[in-house]
C-alpha cells in the first residue's frame, strides 16, 4: 500500500474518547435500534476517563491532590484566565505524562520549600512585624490614648466633641427627599382647633365666635361643623401667606433663599449683619445655606474660608457645638490657614471656653509658628500680664522679625526702663523699623534720644520720619535755630539717598507736625521742601498759592503761613502773593500779624495801591484813624498821582466828619491828580454838604471846562440847577450836555423829565426821539417814551409806542414788564408774562412782575417763590429786594422779613430803576443798605 499513513503504527493516546477529536456526531435512522445520541455524552466521557484511570491504577487525574467537584469546575471556568496554562490546554487530555510532569514539579516545589525553610519563615515573620509596625491597626494606634482616658476628669469628658454621623448619609438624605406629606385630615384640624392649639393669630373675629359652637357640636358627638373646619384651614393658609409676604419684604434674607449662587464673602458679611435678628431668620434658609456650604467644603476641603463660613453659619443658627466641630475639622484640613485657626479660637473664646481657646491657640501656633496674627491672638487670650508677656517672649523667639509683636511686648511693659531695654533690643534685631526707633527715641531723655536718632539715621538713612522726629526733638528742647538746620541737613541726606518725598507729601507731613503741635518743625519742613521738584519754568507761584489755599481749607494755617512766607521770599515783589498772604492773616491770623505783613508788603511793593488801601482800611477799621492817615500819607508819597488813594483819603476824612480836611484833600487831589472822577467826587462832596451851594456849581463848571465830555458833570449841573429851581438854566445844562455826550442815556432821561416837569410834553417827546436816534435800541429810552405817553393819559399813543418798542427791543425785560403791568388787561397778564419769560429768558424784572401778578391774585406762596427766584437770579438788582420787602411787609412774618433784609444787606445791590435813584440822591448819602431798602419799598408804587 503506497499511501500507508504513519498514524497507523502509532499507539493511541492514553484515554482518548472516540469521535471526540473530530467532533463526530451520530445519527438516528431507526428509533427502535436504541437511544439516539449525538456524539460522546458528558457522562460517557467522564465514565471513560474514570475507567481509564482506574485501569491505570491511579487516582483520577487532577494536578495536585484532591480532585475538585466537577460542578465547581464548570463554575470556575468563566473566571479562568485565557492565557492560563490550564485553560490553554484544557481541551487536551490529561495523560500519564502530564501526571508525571506534575508529580515531578510538585516534588521540586516541595524540595524547594523545605530548603531554607527556617530562615525564610524567620524572615517572613520579621517582614510581617515590620509591616505591622509601620502600618499599625487603628486599635493599636490608640491603645495608649485609650489607657489615658482613665485619667480624664468629668469636665474633660464633657468637653470631648461629638462624632458626626456620616454613615449612610447619602441614603438618609435620599430617604428624606422621598419623604411623603399627607394632607392633614379634617378631624385633626378640628381637634386642634378645639383644643386651641392652632395659635393665637387665628383666633380673631369669626373664629372666636365660631369656636364655641364648634366645640358644642363636638361635645354632642353627633355632627362635625365642616364649614368651621374650612374656615380654620383658610385662616391657617392666610397666616402662612402673610408670613411669607413679610419675609419677602423684610429684605435680603429671602433673596438668599431664591438665589442659587451665593457669593461666599458677601454671604459671610450678610451673616454678620443679620446676626442680631437670629430669632427672625427662616429655618429653611439656614438649611439651604448649610447644604451649600457643606458642598463647598466637600469640593475643596483645603479652602479655609469655606470652613469658616460653615462654622459661622452653625454659630448663627445657634448650634455652638456643631460650629466648633466644623471648625475643628477645618483646622485639621487646613492646618496652615491662619484664618481658620483664629476663627476656631474666636468661637471657643466667645462662648466662654477660654481654656479650650488656649489649647487651640497652642495647636495653631504649633502648625504655624511664624504667624504673627496667631501669636498676637494667643497673647490676647491670656488675662494676666505676666502670662501675656510669656507668650510674647515665646513669639519673639519664633518670629524675631515681627514689628507688631515687638510693639505689643513694649506696650505690655509698665516700667519705661524695661520698655527701653526691649526697644533697644528690638531696634538691634530689626534695624529697619522706623517705628521702633521712634518709639525708643520717645522714651529716652532728650540727650539720649538724640543719640538714638543718630543711630536710627545711620540704620535707616532713607527715612524721613527720623529726620522729622529729630527736628521735633530740637524744637521740644528749645533749640529753635537747630530745627531748621537739622531739617536742612535731613533734606540733603534724603536727597543723597534719593528718598525724597514728593512736595505734596512733605506738605502733608508739615500739616501733621502742625497738628501735633510742632509749628517750628512744620515751618522748617516747608522752608526746605517747598521748592523741591519744581522746575524753573513751572508756574511755581500759582502752585504755591494753590498749596497754601489747600492747607488753609484743611485748617492748617501755620502750614499755609509757612508756604506764604516761602513764596514771599521768592516772589518778593509780587503783589498777588502778598494779597493772598494778607487774606490768610485777615481771616485766620491776629491783627498785629496782618499789619506787620501788610507793612512788609507795602515796603516790597510800594506802587501797589491795593496793598496801601488794605493797610489803611485795616488800621481805620481798628479805630486807629491817625495810623490810617499816616499810612495814606506814606502812600501819597509813594504814589503821588493815584486818584484811588486820594479818594480813599477824602472818604476817610469825610466819614470822620473832618469836612475841612476833606475839602483840602480834594482840592489837593484836583491839582495833583485831576481826573474827571476826582472832579465828580469833589462836586458830589460839595453838593452833599450843602444842597444848593454855589461851591458845587462852580466846581462843576470848572470841571466841565476841563472835561466837557463828562456826562456825570453835566447831570450834576442840571440837578443843581433843578434843586435851586432854576429850570431854564437846568434845561440849558441838559441840552448842552446831550450835545456833548449824546450816548448818555441818563442825561437824555433827565432832560426829558425836566421838560415834562415844566409841562412841555412836546419838547419832552422830541428830546426822547432825539435820544432814541442817538442811542438806538435802548429799552430805557423806549420805556420812558411809553411812560411819558401814559403819564399824559394818552393811552393810544402809549400803545403805539409800546408796539414800536417791542419791535426794537423784543428781549428786554423792562419793556415787557412795562407793557404787561401798565398796558395789558388784568386777565391777559398771565399769558403775556409766560410769553415774555419765554422770549427774554431769565430777566429779574420779569420775575418780579410775575411775582407781583401772583401777589395781585393772592397766590402768596407762588409770589414769594418768584421773588426768591428773581433775587437769586440777580442779587445786584435792588428793586427785587425792595418789592420783596414790600410784599413781606404785607404778608410775611417778622422772621422772614429780617431774613430777606439780611440777605439784601449781604448782597449790597447797586442797580435797579428806583433803587439807584434813591441810593444816589444826595440826601441819602451815607445811609445803610437796610435804610435804603425801606425807603425804596416806600417809594414803590
Amino acid at each position, binding site marked *: 500500500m503506497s499511501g500507508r499513513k504513519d498514524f497507523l503504527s502509532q499507539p493511541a493516546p492514553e484515554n482518548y474518547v472516540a*469521535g471526540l477529536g*473530530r467532533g463526530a456526531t451520530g445519527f438516528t435512522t431507526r428509533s427502535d435500534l436504541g437511544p439516539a445520541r449525538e456524539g460522546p455524552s458528558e457522562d460517557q466521557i467522564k465514565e471513560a476517563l474514570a475507567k481509564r484511570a482506574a485501569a491505570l491504577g491511579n487516582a483520577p487525574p487532577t494536578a495536585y491532590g484532591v480532585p475538585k467537584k466537577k460542578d465547581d469546575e464548570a463554575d470556575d471556568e468563566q473566571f479562568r484566565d485565557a492565557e492560563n496554562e490550564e485553560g490553554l490546554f484544557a481541551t487536551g487530555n490529561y495523560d500519564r505524562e502530564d501526571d508525571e510532569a506534575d508529580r515531578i514539579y510538585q516534588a521540586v516545589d516541595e524540595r524547594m520549600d523545605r530548603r531554607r525553610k527556617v530562615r525564610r519563615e524567620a524572615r517572613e515573620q520579621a517582614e510581617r512585624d515590620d509591616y505591622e509596625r509601620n502600618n499599625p491597626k487603628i486599635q493599636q494606634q490608640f491603645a495608649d490614648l485609650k489607657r489615658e482616658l482613665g485619667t480624664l476628669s468629668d469636665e474633660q469628658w464633657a468637653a470631648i466633641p461629638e462624632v458626626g454621623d456620616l454613615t449612610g448619609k447619602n441614603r438618609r438624605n435620599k430617604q428624606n427627599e422621598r419623604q411623603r406629606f399627607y394632607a392633614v385630615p379634617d378631624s385633626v384640624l378640628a381637634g386642634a382647633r378645639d383644643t386651641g392649639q392652632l395659635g393665637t393669630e387665628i383666633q380673631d373675629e369669626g373664629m372666636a365666635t365660631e369656636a364655641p359652637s364648634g366645640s358644642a357640636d363636638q361635645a354632642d358627638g353627633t355632627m362635625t361643623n365642616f364649614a368651621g373646619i374650612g374656615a380654620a384651614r383658610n385662616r391657617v393658609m392666610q397666616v402662612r401667606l402673610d408670613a411669607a409676604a413679610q419675609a419677602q419684604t423684610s429684605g435680603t434674607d429671602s433673596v438668599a433663599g431664591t438665589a442659587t449662587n451665593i457669593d461666599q464673602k458677601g454671604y459671610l458679611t450678610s451673616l454678620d449683619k443679620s446676626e442680631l435678628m437670629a430669632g427672625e431668620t427662616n429655618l429653611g434658609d439656614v438649611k439651604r445655606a448649610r447644604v451649600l456650604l457643606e458642598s463647598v467644603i466637600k469640593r475643596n476641603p483645603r479652602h479655609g474660608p469655606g470652613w469658616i463660613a460653615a462654622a459661622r453659619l452653625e454659630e448663627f443658627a445657634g448650634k455652638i457645638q456643631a460650629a466648633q466641630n466644623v471648625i475643628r475639622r477645618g483646622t485639621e484640613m487646613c492646618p496652615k490657614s491662619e484664618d481658620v485657626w483664629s476663627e476656631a479660637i474666636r468661637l471657643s473664646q466667645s462662648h466662654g471656653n477660654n481654656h479650650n481657646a488656649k489649647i487651640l491657640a497652642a495647636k495653631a501656633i504649633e502648625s504655624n509658628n511664624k504667624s504673627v496674627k496667631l501669636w498676637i491672638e494667643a497673647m490676647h487670650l491670656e488675662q494676666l500680664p505676666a502670662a501675656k508677656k510669656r507668650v510674647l517672649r515665646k513669639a519673639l523667639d519664633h518670629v524675631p522679625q515681627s514689628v507688631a509683636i515687638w510693639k505689643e511686648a513694649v506696650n505690655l511693659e509698665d516700667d519705661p526702663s524695661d520698655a527701653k531695654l526691649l526697644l533697644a533690643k528690638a531696634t538691634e534685631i530689626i534695624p529697619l523699623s522706623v517705628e521702633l526707633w521712634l518709639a525708643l527715641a520717645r522714651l529716652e531723655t532728650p540727650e539720649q534720644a538724640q543719640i538714638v536718632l543718630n543711630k536710627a539715621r545711620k540704620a535707616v538713612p532713607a527715612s524721613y520720619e527720623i529726620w522729622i522726629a529729630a527736628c521735633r526733638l530740637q524744637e521740644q528742647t528749645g533749640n529753635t535755630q537747630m530745627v531748621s538746620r537739622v531739617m536742612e541737613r535731613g533734606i540733603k541726606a534724603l536727597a543723597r539717598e534719593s528718598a525724597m518725598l514728593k512736595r505734596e507729601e512733605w506738605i502733608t507731613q508739615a500739616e501733621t507736625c502742625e497738628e501735633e503741635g510742632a509749628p517750628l518743625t512744620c515751618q522748617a519742613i516747608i522752608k526746605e521742601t517747598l521748592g523741591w521738584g519744581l522746575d524753573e519754568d513751572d508756574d511755581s507761584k500759582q502752585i504755591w498759592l494753590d498749596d497754601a489755599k489747600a492747607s488753609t481749607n484743611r485748617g492748617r494755617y501755620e502750614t499755609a503761613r509757612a508756604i506764604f512766607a516761602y513764596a514771599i521770599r521768592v516772589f518778593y515783589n509780587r503783589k498777588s502773593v502778598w494779597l493772598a498772604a494778607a487774606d490768610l492773616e485777615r481771616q485766620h491770623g491776629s491783627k498785629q500779624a496782618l499789619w506787620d505783613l501788610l507793612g512788609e508788603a507795602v515796603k516790597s511793593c510800594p506802587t501797589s495801591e491795593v496793598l496801601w488801601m488794605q493797610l489803611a482800611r485795616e488800621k481805620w477799621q481798628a479805630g486807629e484813624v491817625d495810623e490810617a492817615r499816616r499810612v495814606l500819607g506814606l502812600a501819597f508819597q509813594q504814589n503821588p498821582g493815584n486818584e484811588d488813594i486820594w479818594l480813599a483819603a477824602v472818604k476817610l476824612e469825610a466819614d470822620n466828619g473832618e469836612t475841612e480836611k476833606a475839602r483840602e484833600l480834594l482840592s489837593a487831589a484836583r491839582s495833583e491828580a485831576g481826573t474827571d472822577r476826582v472832579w465828580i467826587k469833589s462836586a458830589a462832596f460839595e453838593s452833599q454838604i450843602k444842597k444848593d451851594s454855589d461851591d458845587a456849581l462852580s466846581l462843576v463848571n470848572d470841571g466841565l471846562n476841563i472835561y466837557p465830555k463828562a456826562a456825570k458833570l453835566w447831570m450834576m449841573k442840571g440837578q443843581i440847577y433843578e434843586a435851586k429851581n432854576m429850570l431854564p438854566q437846568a434845561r440849558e445844562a441838559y441840552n448842552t450836555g446831550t450835545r456833548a455826550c449824546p450816548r448818555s442815556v441818563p442825561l437824555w432821561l433827565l432832560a426829558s423829565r425836566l421838560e415834562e416837569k415844566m409841562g412841555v410834553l412836546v419838547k419832552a417827546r422830541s428830546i426822547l426821539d432825539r435820544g432814541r436816534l442817538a442811542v438806538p435800541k435802548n429799552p430805557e429810552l423806549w420805556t420812558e417814551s411809553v411812560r411819558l405817553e401814559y403819564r399824559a393819559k394818552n393811552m393810544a399813543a402809549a400803545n403805539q409806542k409800546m408796539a414800536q418798542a417791542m419791535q426794537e427791543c423784543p428781549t428786554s425785560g423792562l419793556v415787557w414788564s412795562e407793557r404787561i403791568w401798565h398796558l395789558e388787561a388784568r386777565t391777559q397778564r398771565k399769558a403775556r408774562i409766560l410769553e415774555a419769560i419765554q422770549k427774554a429768558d431769565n430777566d429779574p424784572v420779569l420775575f418780579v412782575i410775575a411775582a407781583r401778578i401772583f401777589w395781585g391774585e393772592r397766590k402768596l406762596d407762588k409770589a414769594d417763590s418768584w421773588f426768591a427766584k428773581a433775587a437769586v437770579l440777580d442779587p445786584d438788582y435792588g428793586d427785587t429786594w425792595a418789592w420783596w420787602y414790600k410784599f413781606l411787609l404785607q404778608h410775611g412774618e417778622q422772621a422772614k422779613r429780617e431774613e430777606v433784609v439780611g440777605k439784601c444787606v449781604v448782597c449790597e445791590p447797586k442797580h435797579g430803576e428806583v433803587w439807584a435813584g434813591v441810593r444816589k440822591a444826595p440826601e441819602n448819602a451815607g445811609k445803610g443798605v437796610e435804610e435804603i431798602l425801606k425807603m425804596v419799598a416806600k417809594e414803590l408804587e
Partner: protein
Amino acid sequence: MGSVVIPHLVTGWHVDQAIMSEEDRLVVIRFGRDWDPDCMRQDEVLYKIADRVKNFAVIYVCDLDQVPDFKQMYELYDTVTLMFFFRNKHMMCDFGTGNNNKLNWVLEDKQELIDIIETIYKGAKKGRGLVP
C-alpha cells in the same frame, strides 16, 4: 484474506485519525468482525478494488469487538457495514434501502461498488452531503 491486507484501525483514535488525515480522498471504513463470513466476502471485494480506487478513495477495516466506541454512535448492529467519510464529514448515499447512512449488506459486484464509491466521491467533491 482481504482483511489482512487492508489496514486495520485498532482504536477509536485511529479511526478518527484515519478520517481526519485524508484531505481529498474518500475514506471508506468497513465496520464488522474479521471472522464473520459476510465480512470475509466483503473484504475480498474491497481488497480487489482497493488498488483501482486508490486515486479517490482509501479503504480501512475496523473490528467492532476491538473498537466498540462507535457501535452506539453509528448504530453498528449489522454484521458488515460500509461507511463513507470525506474531509471529516459523514457521506450519505441513497441506496434504496431506507438507510442512507451506510451500506449494510454485502456487495460482491466489484464494478458496482466502484461505481458507488466513485459516485459518492463525485458528490462529495461537489460539496453534497447526500448522494443519489
